[in-house]
Each structure stands twice: as structure tokens, then as C-alpha cells.
């Protein structure tokens, strides 16, 4: 079972504390400036105070958007068996946690791809860069409900199984995407261990 929730409840509490701290800072500065204006009719603010306001607003916005993600629906995936040969199949079960009512679309595809490390000769210093070339993409039919379901993933024949070299790899993944209300499209990849075909002889 693979859980995709990006952070724990403890981390949520930490982020909420950050929001509270940023909010308190803005409140303190705002209250101070308001009292100053009430006394003298001028809202004077120093460069330092202005910087604190900008910092506080930035932290507040960033923390709020990040914390909001905790309440997004996240899929839990169960893929069985752990490894399967080409020509056989995997069974995939998914179920969403969180606010399932915000789910709008889901899609799943089986992808096989080459991943290689190559020298990047464009820059001054040669930096290895990862290149990817898909050689198989099969979109899956997803019957049933959006918030939970299961699918049968048929592996093709006559292709390369998983190969894990140091500089060249053959990777099989299950790509899972979902679109939610009030949120960005979420993309996940679950790596599959695909074994060589079982010979008939």
C-alpha cells in the first residue's frame, strides 16, 4: 500500500503555528500603526517595519496555500503482485482519503520508458542530465466510482522488462492523475517491477 499524503498531522500543526505566528506579527504591527495614526494622524512605518509586513504577508500566503493541500483528496494505492513478468498483469486498487467530494477527474496509464544519463555539453561545465523517452503508453479504463476502485493492468509482450543500470534504465510506472476542485492537477507515479517474460518452452 502506497500512501501519497504529502505531510503528517504533526507537520500540519507546525504549519498552522507558522500561520498563527505570521498573523500575530501582522496584527501587532497593524495595531501599533493604528494607535500611532489615532494619536497623531500619521501612519509612519520604518523600512524595517515595512520589511516585516512584506515578510509576514509572504509567509502567511505561502503557509496558507501549503496547509490547504492537507485537505486535498489523496489516493492510497495497492498494487499486486509486487513484481510481474511481461505478458501477465497487475491489479491496482485505489481509494481516496480527505475531501472526496472535491474529486473531478481521474486517469491512469501504464508507461514504459527509457531513462539515461547523458553529458550536457551546452554549459561551461559538463553536467550529467537525465533524458527520458517513453516507449509504451497505455491508458486504462477505470470503471466504478472516482473515489475508490480497482483496475486490471495488462503488461505487453515483446518489450524490455525493468532494467536498472547505473546510467541507463528501463522503467515501468503506473501514472495516476487527478483533477480536484479548488486545486491543481495532481500527478503521481508508482514504479512497477516488471520481470522478463516467462518462456513457453
Amino acid at each position: 500500500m502506497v500512501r501519497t499524503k504529502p505531510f503528517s498531522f504533526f507537520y500540519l500543526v507546525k504549519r498552522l503555528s507558522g500561520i498563527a505566528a505570521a498573523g500575530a506579527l501582522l496584527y501587532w504591527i497593524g495595531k501599533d500603526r493604528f494607535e500611532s495614526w489615532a494619536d497623531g494622524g500619521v501612519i509612519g512605518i520604518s523600512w524595517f517595519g515595512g520589511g516585516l509586513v512584506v515578510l509576514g504577508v509572504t509567509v502567511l500566503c505561502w503557509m496558507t496555500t501549503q496547509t490547504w493541500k492537507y485537505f486535498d483528496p489523496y489516493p492510497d494505492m495497492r498494487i499486486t503482485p509486487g513484481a510481474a513478468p511481461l505478458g501477465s498483469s497487475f491489479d491496482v486498487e485505489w481509494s481516496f482519503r480527505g475531501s472526496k467530494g472535491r474529486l473531478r477527474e481521474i486517469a491512469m496509464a501504464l508507461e514504459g520508458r527509457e531513462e539515461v544519463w547523458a553529458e550536457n555539453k551546452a554549459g561551461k561545465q559538463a553536467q550529467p542530465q537525465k533524458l527520458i523517452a517513453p516507449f509504451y503508453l497505455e491508458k486504462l479504463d477505470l470503471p466504478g466510482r472516482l473515489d475508490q476502485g480497482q483496475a486490471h493492468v495488462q503488461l505487453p509482450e515483446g518489450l524490455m522488462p525493468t532494467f536498472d543500470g547505473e546510467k541507463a534504465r528501463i522503467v515501468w510506472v503506473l501514472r495516476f492523475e487527478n483533477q480536484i476542485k479548488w486545486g491543481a492537477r495532481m500527478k503521481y507515479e508508482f514504479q512497477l517491477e516488471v520481470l522478463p517474460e516467462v518462456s513457453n518452452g
Partner: protein
Amino acid sequence: MDSLQIILARESGEFEPASHLVGQLTWNLSKVPDRVELRLFWTTFGVGIAESKSIEAVAFERLLTFDSRPFKFRLPSFPYSYRGKLMSLSWVLEATAFPSRRNVRKHFIMGPDGKEVVLPSAEGEVFDATRKAA
């Protein structure tokens, strides 16, 4: 003229995984070599950084300038020879005579039914096949 040659029993050079690779290593050298090594390995080539892995090696000793030795390797079951868009993998036998380091390579295919796996190209978006909430 010095010569070093790898002759495979199966002339097609196509082998199934876990099968036997049988052949003959012959040479005709101007000086008696100390030893001749035969190495089995796979190597990758293409746009990425090349990589190779040695599987097995044998060394022949007590040699003559003109000589021939049989060899037999058991191939592993994986990786297969493949040809992709970015990289390809090939199986190789390499013979090296010492101390001259004269060498020769023989490429062969190892894959299901003795065939190289050719990877096609695939492009597309996962969200072409979407299911929307009712």
C-alpha cells in the same frame, strides 16, 4: 600479420537467455603470448553515457604463436539486447592477447527467441482518457 579471431558455433550470433555460448578462439601471432583472455560482457551505447558490465572471463595459458582454444559460456537470463531511442544494449565477447594487448570483439544478440528487443516510440497524455464526476 598478427590475427586474433572469435568464431561462434552459431553463426547467426543470436542466442536465447541462459543458453550456452560455444565457440573457438584462434590466433596467429608473431610472438608467443603470455596469455590470452576472453571476456563476456554487455555494454550500452547511444546518446547517454556508456556503461558496461563484465559477466565472466577466462584466461588461456601455455600457448603457441598459432593456436586455437574452444570456449563455452553460460549466458545469464538478463539483460536482453535492446535497441531504444536513447540507448541500445549489446552483448560482447572480447579476446585480448598479452602483453601485446592486441584484441578483437564479437558482438552478438541475446534476447527472447534469440532476437533483439526493439523499443518503439510512445507519446501522449494520461488525461486523454479521463473520467469526470457525474
